[in-house]
């Protein structure tokens, strides 16, 4: 009997460890185009203490450890590139505390987006979180760790900007806390030193987050989506800029896609508006549609499509079935908003060249400080040619992002290499030092963000 397996089973329990082909098969996949790689073990812990023991064992035995949340990165970030122990963290799904006055929630690392959305709606209807467009099975921590953005990105920023504190198991097995909780205060704010940034954006290569305190935001009684459309993509940046100036909107998204035909070659906007009264709602609508966008309407350059009350939450996505193929992947970028027209035009070109109907989206982050611009490529999982085609399109798009002066958001290994090539050499060296300090044996999610 494999002694590693036995040790792992002793740490969790026999039902939550597996080295059987079925688990190894399923956990080898990312849902996108990334090539599968099998772990040697799949373990599902339920406490930070168990994770500590697993990490210590991995250190002793030089076995890679790959932490997995919802597995929705669609960039292969939790594919065990060098095998090892795949940690399925979703059993740690307790909502530990919701503090109404401080507007924050303390969560275990496995809490899903849908679970939190539902919990807040039922128990704390005046509070909400910035919910990303990922399926609700994605985890809050997983999204924060990749600098995700949700439907409150405008005006509140990245989800990683909303972190008050973390509890982390280091690659060497110690448990550390960051934020105000580190000095024994409540988890209500981040502490100046040391910074939670050591663990955000590092894709699990510097440690495993076991707890998170995330800021919650006000939820108003009436929430809905207004829609606007233009046919000239050059107008998008100025419209977004002016909308953010009003401070009257929540989520602002611009998108365009070849299918369905009504979206083709047009730029649609969705503008989320929230209000506690009809008076407030009408005031906001007046400022947005009449005062700010009125001139586009009257010139005939933009059209108001109406306002629908009710926000679909959790958001339901059918993108994966567009080609009846069960698959899609996208390149996400963080872009200056003024690049929207080029992103759209070049994105269409790449899609058309790869014979994939184009789908592009830009979500405004902060006060138009940037946008998350995504190019989506659908594929048919049953047809390897389409997977290859999508992968090529994705790689080309990764290169496009950097050419256009943007930043690749949550890059997979291909994009990581492109970024590392361009990275300031001193910064790169510092990264290497930090990584080496925290993870001397190099066991944490190896193959990702590896600096030669």
């Amino acid at each position, binding site marked *: 009997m494999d002694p590693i397996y036995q040790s792992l089973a002793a740490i969790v329990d026999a039902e939550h460890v597996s080295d059987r082909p079925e688990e190894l098969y399923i956990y080898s996949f990312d849902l996108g185009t990334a090539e599968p790689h099998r772990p040697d073990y799949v373990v599902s812990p339920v406490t930070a203490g168990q994770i500590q023991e697993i990490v210590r064992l991995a250190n002793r035995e030089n076995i890679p450890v790959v932490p997995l949340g919802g597995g929705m990165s669609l960039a292969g970030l939790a594919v065990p590139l060098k095998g090892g122990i795949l940690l399925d963290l979703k059993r740690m799904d307790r909502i530990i505390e919701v503090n109404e006055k401080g507007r924050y929630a303390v969560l275990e690392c496995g809490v899903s987006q849908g679970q939190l959305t539902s919990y807040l709606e039922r128990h704390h209807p005046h509070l909400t979180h910035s919910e990303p467009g990922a399926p609700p099975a994605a985890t809050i921590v997983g999204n924060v760790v990749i600098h995700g953005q949700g439907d409150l990105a405008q005006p509140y920023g990245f989800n990683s900007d909303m972190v008050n504190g973390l509890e982390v198991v280091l690659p060497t097995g110690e448990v550390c806390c960051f934020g105000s909780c580190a000095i024994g205060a409540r988890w209500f704010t981040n502490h100046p030193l040391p910074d939670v940034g050591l663990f955000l954006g590092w894709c699990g290569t510097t440690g495993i987050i076991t707890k998170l305190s995330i800021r919650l935001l006000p939820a108003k009684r009436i929430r809905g989506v207004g829609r606007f*459309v*233009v*046919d000239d993509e050059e107008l998008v940046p100025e419209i977004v800029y002016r909308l953010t100036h009003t401070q009257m909107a929540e989520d602002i998204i611009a998108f365009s896609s070849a*299918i*369905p*035909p*009504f*979206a*083709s*070659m*047009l730029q649609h906007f969705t503008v989320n508006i929230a209000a506690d009264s009809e008076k407030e709602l*009408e005031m906001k*609508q*007046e400022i947005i*549609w*009449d005062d700010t966008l*009125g001139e*586009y*309407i*009257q*010139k*005939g*350059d*933009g*059209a*108001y*499509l*109406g306002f629908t*009350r009710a926000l679909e939450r959790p958001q339901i996505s059918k993108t994966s079935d567009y080609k009846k193929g069960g698959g899609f992947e996208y390149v996400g970028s963080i872009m200056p908003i003024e690049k929207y027209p080029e992103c759209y035009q070049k994105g269409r070109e790449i899609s058309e060249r790869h014979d994939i109907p184009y789908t592009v989206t830009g979500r405004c982050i902060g006060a138009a400080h940037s946008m998350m611009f995504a190019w989506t490529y659908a594929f048919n999982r049953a047809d390897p040619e389409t997977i290859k085609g999508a992968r090529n399109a994705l790689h080309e798009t990764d290169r496009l992002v950097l050419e256009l002066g943007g930043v690749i958001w949550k890059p997979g290994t291909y994009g990581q290499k492109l970024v590392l090539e361009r990275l300031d050499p001193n910064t790169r060296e510092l990264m290497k030092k930090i990584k080496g300090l925290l993870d001397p044996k190099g066991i944490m999610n190896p193959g990702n963000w590896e600096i030669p």
Partner: protein
Amino acid sequence: MYELKFDPDLCLGCSTQACLAKCQYIEIDRETAQEEILKIARGEDSFVLHECATCYACEEYCTFGNHPFYLIAEKQEARGISPVPRPLIQRAVNIGIPFRGRPEIKEINSPVLNIGAFSELTHLIQGKLFEGIAAISTDERKMFHFFCQLMYLHYGRDSIIKERLPGIIETIAKYKPTEVICFHDECYGAYTSYSSAHGIDVPFKPVHFYEYLYNRLVELKDMIRPLNLKVAYQRPCSSRLSPDKHLFVGRIFDLIGAESVKREFVDENALCCAGAIEGQKREGSRKRAAMQQKRNIEDMQKAGAEVCVFNCPACFQTLGGMVARNGIKPVHMSDLCRLAIGETPEGWR
């Protein structure tokens, strides 16, 4: 190829100019009305072309059946005047493009219920009222093969209708229907009023949905238990294209024991849902539409309506929520009729 049968002499000899004089959106006296309609007929500019709300009512107001609204729509396009912003036109034109394959056509050789572009609403044609009737356009992926196109009258794109409608008629005709019951009022208008006004041949007999409902209710008379509900009717713009069928509304209400409340905005004076006005180019359109909707619903409330009966799904989508928030239950006519024969439609409380 298809030309509008419009006779300017009829306007010249008209004593009322009711088409424009009665317009609910434009303040205009009889004399000016005559001038403007003739200007439009001659292909000249007119403020009417710019201010038209596209509510279709003048089709009903004209006592000669001279199609003033079809004329306005045609001339708007000819002069490059569109009531709505350019991107909205492109969007609308593209929406009607079918892109998910062709429908499977089987010859039916009997009456057929054509759901048109509302395939997602098959829950509105359930129960005894529709037993034994074959429905077509039940697959929402293929529904734009059955789309009557008349919507483009709101967009200043009359030419699209002339371009696409004959093909739609051909598709429907392939089913070899003996009659085509039109679920949507606008489809009925397309296959009667619009087609005849433009000389488009329609090789089947269109039947108005409410005429069908009324006759079917008469057949099921023994099952009817009076509803004793106070109802207001949301008359859609398309109803103006078939004013001869509007009487079925009252007949159905009488048959099922629904009391039609005494409203100001009723029959000829009905207010459209303003769904087509909200997105128009003219400054203040959004607010104007909202005010009209408010007036419409306040009128229903003042008259004591408990229920607002809808004909058109687009009106329902535009007004339904607002109606409900104001304490009146929105319901489709077919669902109201189902209630009358003891059935419980989906979602009714």
